[in-house]
């Protein structure tokens, strides 16, 4: 028996089930939600180093829909379910205290996870669109979960931009279908290689990649992100920043560029320019912010820029760096968002100016914030350092020292902005520091601390994943991307 359908079946089934049973019994959503995400985490670890194509309903590739499990999907599955488990663990206390209607929260959360699992496993263009929509609709609702004016406004902005992006994607899928008569990614790729290139395919690729770039919040399309991420509840911010923009955005863009349209110098330059612009403008805007979560949100844009630059460099080292940075970013960014949630839970504010001296009262939270900050700024020996180092080395190796220079500048600016966080919130005092409230602060509960500790430990030790370089643990992932279109076609269509 194959475990792949369970990645969709379990979260959806539990999400359908929760509203039925838990109107009266209060603890059901908590328990079911955590058990589900934990099971999914174990299942996703079981997919390591496996590679196969699963035919849904027994229909072969172009006829039916297929699940494609390869190195890249496997990595994304682990990221989704790991961060998902951490976020649900954190939610138990956090949502209980701050929000009502826990059952809808967990149900939407599981639908979001199921949608993303479906997205990363799918091998079909239209199916990719459908599951992207599930995950995005759940995240629209979760961003507005608090129902305050700001949150609703952010949710509406996200809804409109996300929906326009989805329609662009659907139009692109329609154009490709009209040209090729098929929906399977590998089959479409095969047909595109056989017919002469024309403007239709270019236009369709622009629509598709543009649409998914909105979901990834790369710079020309980033307007929704700085509003949506701070407005959501903290575990959802961690999910949005750590997982959603990667699974719905970067992953799909990577898949489309490297496995469907084919990588060439034009896409390479495009990715590098977009990446550099995202990297620099994101971090410049972040320095100006005094809202902790908003600052982190701008850093998400900036760090996604690194990933895209790494992928755009196109050589094995760059891809390795990009993918590794993707993984690292999901760890430290969700750690930082959960930290900000813990601080907000205790102090009731997100304004850095009002915080101060937290290391005395909340030692674990401040220590994990420190780890996350050092990691995102690229201080050795934390994981962020290694991935940024590889990207910079790859840029030099590819003969683009300017790119490497920009990456270094971005890293320095990141460090300076996180110095501000540490100075105001953790080890110094903000300008509007309130002595009276400070006396009441204490460390958050154990259930909220566990995910912080786990993620910090992972941040310290994931540098080890790099052992072996391009042929090491991340080897299969690099292989999928580097193998390009032909390898993907052969694997899925089994020619």
């Amino acid at each position: 028996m194959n475990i792949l359908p369970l990645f969709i079946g379990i979260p959806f089934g539990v999400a359908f089930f929760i509203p039925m049973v838990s109107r009266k019994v209060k603890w059901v959503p908590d328990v079911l939600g955590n058990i589900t995400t934990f099971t999914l985490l174990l299942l996703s670890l079981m997919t390591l180093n496996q590679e196969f194509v699963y035919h849904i309903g027994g229909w072969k590739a172009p006829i039916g829909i297929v699940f494609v499990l390869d190195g890249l999907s496997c990595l994304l599955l682990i990221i989704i379910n790991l961060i998902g488990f951490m976020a649900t663990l954190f939610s138990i206390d956090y949502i209980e205290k701050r929000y009502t209607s826990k059952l809808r929260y967990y149900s939407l959360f599981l639908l979001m996870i199921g949608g993303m699992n479906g997205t990363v496993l799918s091998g079909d263009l239209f199916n990719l669109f459908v599951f992207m929509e599930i995950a995005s609709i759940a995240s629209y609702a979760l961003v507005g979960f608090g129902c305050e004016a700001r949150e609703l406004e952010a949710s509406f902005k996200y809804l409109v931009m996300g929906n326009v992006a989805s329609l662009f994607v659907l139009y692109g899928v329609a154009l490709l279908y009209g040209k090729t008569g098929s929906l399977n990614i590998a089959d479409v790729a095969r047909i595109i290689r056989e017919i002469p290139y024309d403007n239709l395919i270019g236009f369709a690729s622009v629509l598709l990649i543009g649409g998914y770039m909105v979901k990834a919040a790369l710079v020309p399309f980033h307007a929704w992100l700085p509003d949506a991420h701070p407005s959501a509840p903290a575990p959802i911010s961690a999910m949005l920043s750590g997982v959603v923009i990667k699974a719905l955005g970067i992953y799909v863009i990577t898949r489309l560029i490297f496995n469907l349209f084919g990588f060439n110098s034009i896409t390479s330059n495009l990715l590098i320019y977009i990446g550099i612009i995202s990297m620099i403008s994101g971090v410049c805007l972040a320095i100006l912010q005094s809202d902790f979560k908003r600052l982190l949100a701008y850093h998400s844009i900036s760090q996604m820029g690194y990933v895209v630059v790494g992928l755009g460099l196109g050589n094995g080292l760059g891809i390795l760096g990009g993918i590794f940075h993707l993984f690292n970013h999901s760890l430290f960014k969700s750690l930082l968002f959960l930290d900000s949630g813990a601080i907000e839970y205790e102090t009731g504010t997100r304004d850095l100016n009002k915080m101060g001296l937290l290391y005395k009262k909340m030692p674990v939270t401040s220590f994990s914030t420190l780890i996350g900050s050092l990691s995102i700024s690229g201080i050795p020996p934390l994981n962020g350092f290694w991935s940024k180092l590889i990207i910079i080395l790859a840029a030099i190796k590819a003969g683009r020292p300017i790119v490497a220079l920009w990456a270094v500048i971005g890293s320095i600016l990141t460090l300076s902005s996180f110095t501000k966080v540490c100075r105001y919130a953790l080890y110094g005092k903000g300008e509007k520091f309130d002595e009276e409230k400070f006396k009441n602060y204490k460390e958050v509960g154990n259930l909220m601390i566990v995910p912080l500790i786990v993620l910090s430990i992972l941040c310290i030790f994931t540098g080890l994943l790099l052992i072996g370089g391009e042929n090491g643990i991340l080897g299969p992932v690099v292989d999928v991307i580097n193998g390009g279109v032909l390898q993907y076609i052969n694997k899925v269509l089994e020619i």
Partner: protein
Amino acid sequence: MIYYLCFVIFLIGLYGVCCKKNIVKIILGLWIMEYSVNLFLILLGYRKNGIAPILREGDNIVEFAQKAVDPLPQAMVLTSIVIGLGVLALMVTVAIRLYQRYGTFDITEMRKLKG
């Protein structure tokens, strides 16, 4: 020619989303774009003098397969209509909630978020 007209509807919807200041108008713009995409998919599948892809008793299947229109876009459109309806319901509820918070549908008056 027909494809262009269909694309014009898409662009009208896009114009509505980008330029209008009223939330209801933005929702209408998205709904128009939805129509256009659905229509485009069905137009792609049309075959000259085609018949609906539904077999009746006594039909010859080979003959039927040479006359019927493309069923796959229809399946896609069915899904996409449902997606549109779901998103519409969600958007309308957000709009009602926003109206309750601000007392207006005008997005220029809702600027609690910086930048």
